[in-house]
């Protein structure tokens, strides 16, 4: 998470869907993401969940079907503020 002093590890296989994962992340990092929509990203909060895929590209969590996401996600990062520009965040 942006600004946090240490990393956390989670097992994606534990979760069955985006809502489960996002709820866990929000609990773990004590933040809120807002509602996901393809159009606006995560609207209504200053944080957004992103992930690094196996190509090394950073993408917004939620665009692809869950199984596809799990297979390609290498790392998660919660971004905020200017990093989240245009992703539906404040």
């Amino acid at each position: 998470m942006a600004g946090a002093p240490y990393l956390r590890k989670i097992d994606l296989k534990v979760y069955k869907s985006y809502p489960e994962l996002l709820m866990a992340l929000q609990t773990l990092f004590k933040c809120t993401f807002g509602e996901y929509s393809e159009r606006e990203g995560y609207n209504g909060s200053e944080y957004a969940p992103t992930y690094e895929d196996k190509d090394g590209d950073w993408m917004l969590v939620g665009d692809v079907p869950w199984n596809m996401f799990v297979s390609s996600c290498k790392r998660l990062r919660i971004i905020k503020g200017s990093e989240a520009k245009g992703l539906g965040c404040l």
Partner: protein
Amino acid sequence: MESNTSSFLLNSSTLHSVFYQDKQDDGIIDLGLSLGTVHHEAYHSSANRMVYDGDLMDWPHSNLNIKNSSTMHSRSVPENFDEEIEGVQSNERWAYVKVNMDGVTIGRKISVLDHGGYSSLALQLEDMFGSQSGSGLRLFQSESEYSLFYKDRQDHWRPVGDVPWKEFIECVKRLRIARKNDGIVSCSSRYT
């Protein structure tokens, strides 16, 4: 049946990987033969339905047989999800490509099979990235500050719209929204 469409579906060299789609409600698998099919619950609502232009793809009924045929390549549940494709993650129902915009760190993914043509694609990109620019993207409009490029299967960057839509969806691997005054996509671009 459009030969281009069927070859796109069946040719294993066209598809980089196959992803298993869990069964939908009541054990019924929606084969997504309709362009309007909802395949991702987080994306579609009636308010977000794309407007298709006249250039609709034709997904014939015979695809039902093809899906269950033993001639299909690796259509069973894939054991190994490890391989990441710099390009299309696809099956018969979707073909996701990455979209990046100059100056925006985080990319998005869209399914080109959601759309019937370039105008529909432009609408979705406007929705996703339009807020990055004060006047919106206005892709394909001459006064726009932005151009849309795609990477084809030969890894060449080309301007979107240079080929008919049906050809485009078969060869697009990646999209990039570039500022016009930045000139041609350079070889040193982060996304090449």
